[in-house]
């Protein structure tokens, strides 16, 4: 898996046993009345990391963030920030600042006053506040809007004000609660890169909460996928996508085809699986599955080839079906191929050429095939 | 706003409501006082209620008030609803700002001004003061309140309901009576109730605009109150409070029941 981790940056303190954790959640549980929002959760985040908490709504990710900010106290367990136990420390004394989902810009204050608010609370001298505010305005490119009130700004500008306000105090950690949720798609994509640049420039630790996997994948160094108050997997985006730890993760992140089957052979070279759909699978990634066990073979749509002609060999990793649906997306085409067993397999083909030499259409007979290292075996 | 309800919050709410309700409670309690002294408890008695009903002057005034209130509330509801419709539906017409200002100004206008100017108007057009003028005066000031109540409902009214009706072939008048009116009916009913109680309560405007034979209950009460506090007045007041409070509480219980029933129906529908 190390080869996958190195696709992005060489920054990987989680692989370094000597690295000191910066934020530690230690067996943290939080209950509201009878509802357990966070359940016995432990998690470590390193300094300067861009860390994403990813999950569906109600999975406890926002509660986790709010406990870090100090708006909620854990029912049990503890949270350490830079070695210091955060219990009992009110939000206004914590070295963490939050960017709120609603931005929570003070409507009665100008952009400048919003950004200066936190600095004023510190009692900094006026010239210094002014200088810092000017820096921040330059950083988020809002110089000419300094005197405007929040309602006179566009959604993207408001988002940048909220960002500037939360980083103005140079917190140890910046907490971002669905920071891009209110922006439209195009603006969101631009802003993702801006946020990443900003994090690099400031050298801050970012913890971001999002339900948008694409957002998490784009920006984060590592992602914690959460479900029902628990962390299901913590890993880099590439690992999460290519080596999901369970059926849940594989299904939650991205699109996936799952073939259930029984392991017939498993050794260091790989495994053979007798698929329940009537074709056999050979894979180089065994996932540690023992012979005879029931497993799922997970493979992403883009790693499946679709063709009207049979592949070179059809003994394994190949099956014929019928084109059931075609979704033309421009950059790629997604085929839904119905197997004889009834399962529908998604396969996507990049439209690298303007005109394909193998046109497939509805109800055509088509072969799907894939390489031995294209998928992964999931035991849980 | 959410977040914790601190002890300070609880105490201020409790004290606030005590301030609002204690005088009324005391008033009601002392209406059942045996003693003529309103401030000394002399035992439980309903004799003031008995003497109340044999007081012909008060009874006549009550009857006048009831008729004025019903008639003026009804007329005010029709006019107020029309004003609200114009204000929400026609956002652009010459003099809209003037019109809306004129509709809403009486809400905050001191009653002495409203009363005096209405009187001068009646005199100017040659109307003899009496039952008719009081009723007209009450229509004039209570229709503003109706307009406000109905307008606040109309603002959230989904216009596509009307468009759907017209799309299905209903002419505008039919659409209004079959779609719009039933939907805004609760607001119209509360507008009527508000107009009714305002008319029931009014002293100042009635004093200016009423004439011989049209003395309303508040006018009668006022003339007696000026002579001093009597248990009889406490008894009248208790009956008026009981009537209004009973009406309001009953209406809100009906509303609440309906909301609960609706929620239950929706849940049932969800479950299939």
């Amino acid at each position, binding site marked *: 898996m190390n080869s996958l981790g190195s696709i992005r940056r060489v920054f990987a303190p989680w692989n370094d046993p000597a690295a000191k954790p910066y934020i530690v959640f230690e067996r943290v549980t939080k209950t509201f009345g009878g509802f357990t929002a966070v359940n016995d959760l432990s998690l470590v985040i390193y300094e300067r990391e861009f860390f994403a908490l990813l999950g569906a709504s109600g999975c406890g990710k926002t509660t986790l963030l709010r406990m870090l900010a100090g708006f909620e106290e854990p029912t049990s367990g503890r949270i350490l920030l830079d070695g210091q136990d955060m219990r009992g420390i009110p939000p206004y004394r914590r070295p963490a600042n939050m960017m709120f989902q609603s931005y929570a810009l003070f409507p009665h204050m100008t952009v400048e006053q919003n950004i200066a608010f936190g600095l004023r609370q510190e009692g900094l001298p006026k010239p210094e506040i002014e200088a810092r505010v000017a820096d921040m305005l330059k950083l988020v490119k809002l110089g000419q809007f300094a005197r405007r009130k929040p309602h006179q700004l566009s959604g993207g500008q408001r988002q940048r004000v909220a960002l500037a306000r939360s980083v103005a105090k140079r917190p140890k950690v910046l907490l971002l609660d669905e920071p891009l949720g209110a922006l439209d798609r195009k603006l969101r994509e631009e802003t993702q890169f801006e946020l990443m640049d900003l994090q690099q420039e400031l050298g801050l630790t970012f913890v971001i909460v999002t339900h948008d996997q694409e957002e998490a994948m784009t920006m984060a160094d590592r992602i914690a996928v959460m479900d029902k108050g628990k962390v299901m997997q913590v890993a880099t985006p590439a690992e999460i996508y290519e080596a999901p730890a369970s059926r849940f993760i594989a299904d939650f992140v991205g699109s996936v085809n799952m073939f259930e089957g029984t392991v017939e052979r498993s050794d260091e070279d790989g495994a053979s699986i007798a698929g329940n759909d009537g074709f056999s699978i050979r894979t180089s990634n065994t996932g540690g599955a023992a012979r005879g066990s029931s497993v799922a073979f997970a493979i992403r749509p883009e790693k499946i080839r679709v063709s009207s002609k049979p592949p070179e060999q059809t003994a394994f990793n190949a099956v014929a079906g019928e084109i059931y649906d075609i979704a033309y997306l421009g950059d790629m085409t997604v085929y839904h191929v119905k197997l004889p067993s009834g399962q529908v397999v998604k396969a996507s083909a990049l439209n690298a050429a303007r005109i394909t030499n193998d046109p497939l259409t509805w109800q055509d007979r088509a072969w799907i095939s894939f390489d031995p290292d294209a998928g992964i075996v999931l035991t849980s | 706003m959410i*977040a914790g309800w601190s002890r300070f919050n609880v105490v201020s709410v409790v004290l606030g409501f005590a301030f609002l309700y204690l005088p009324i409670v005391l008033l009601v309690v002392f209406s059942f006082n045996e003693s003529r002294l309103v401030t000394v408890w002399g035992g439980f008695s309903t004799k003031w209620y008995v003497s109340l009903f044999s007081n012909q002057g008060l009874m006549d005034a009550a009857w006048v008030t009831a008729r004025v209130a019903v008639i003026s509330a009804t007329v005010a509801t029709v006019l107020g609803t029309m004003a609200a419709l114009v204000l929400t539906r026609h956002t652009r017409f010459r003099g809209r700002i003037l019109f809306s200002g004129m509709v809403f100004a009486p809400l905050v206008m001191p009653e002495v001004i409203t009363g005096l100017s209405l009187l001068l108007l009646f005199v100017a057009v040659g109307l003899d003061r009496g039952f008719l003028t009081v009723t007209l005066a009450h229509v004039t000031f209570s229709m503003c309140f109706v307009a406000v109540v109905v307008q606040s409902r109309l603002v959230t009214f989904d216009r596509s309901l009307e468009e759907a009706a017209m799309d299905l072939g209903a002419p505008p008048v039919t659409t209004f009576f079959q779609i719009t009116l039933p939907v805004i009916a609760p607001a119209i009913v509360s507008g009527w109730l508000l107009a009714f109680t305002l008319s029931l309560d009014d002293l100042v405007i009635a004093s200016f605009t009423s004439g011989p034979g049209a003395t309303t209950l508040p006018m009668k009460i006022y003339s007696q109150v000026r002579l001093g506090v009597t248990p009889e007045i406490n008894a009248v007041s208790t009956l008026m409070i009981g009537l209004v409070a009973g009406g309001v509480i009953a209406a809100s219980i009906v509303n609440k029941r309906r909301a609960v029933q609706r929620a239950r129906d929706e849940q049932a529908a969800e479950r299939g």
Partner: protein
Amino acid sequence: MAGPRLDLVRSGCRHRTDELEIGDGQRHDRCDARRRRRGPAKPGVTSLYRVDQPPRHRRSVLLEQLGEFGLDNYLWLTEDPLYLNAYVSSVVIAAISTLLALLVGYPIAYGMARAPAALRPILLMLVILPFWTSFLIRVYAWIGILKPEGLLNQLLLGLGLIDVPLVILNTHSAIFIGIVYSYLPFMVLPLYSSLEKMDHSLIEAAQDLGCRPAGAFWKITFPLSLPGVIAGSMLVFIPAVGEFVIPDLLGGSQTLMIGKTLWNEFFANRDWPVSSAVAVILLLLLIVPIMFFQSAQARAREEGR
């Protein structure tokens, strides 16, 4: 006192009374003096509207007399310091009462806004309910509480907190209590609605940026509730300036408020032109706060969008 007054109302105002009938002694002397100074009123010269004609001809007479408008009544108002004093004292009393109502109403509205969501509709109804009960009756209820042998003094004497009954009824304090009590719902409702819709994350954001809870209240909550403060204050102040029932029943004969002056001018002295002039000046006085209120409301609606 009141009986004859109401009889006057009933007997109608078909003719202008040059001779005075009954009324509060003090005010009478003043009016006598005025009449003496001015001489017998000449019909049609001093009236805004002439109402001394037989009813049938009023309309045509009114039209004829339109040319006879004069400013005499207004000049009269400036000559007698009584009116100026009444205006000033009304504004002062209304302003103090408004401030008191704000001080009493704000904690209530704040407490309501922070109450559990399930409880809020009930609290809201409890605030509105007194508004549905008769104003006159609610003011009347305070007489029994505030008078020297009233319930409040009995309670305080009984507890041994005071030795001599407090004189509250027929003082300004009684008027303040009456206005605060009667208009409290008008103060609480707009305050509540501005506090209730406030986004709690703003307060969290302030705390997150290093602001203590008390600081967050003054820097965020209070400024943001200003539209509610303004609306509530206007809803109390404007009607309070022209209030008649409260000063009349609780304030006693010493109190000078313009609503009461107008009432006396109309019912006791039966001087319609002067009472009309008093009303017009009062209206002009209130136009500014009313416009201010209207524009504040409009702005609040704009920002709410």
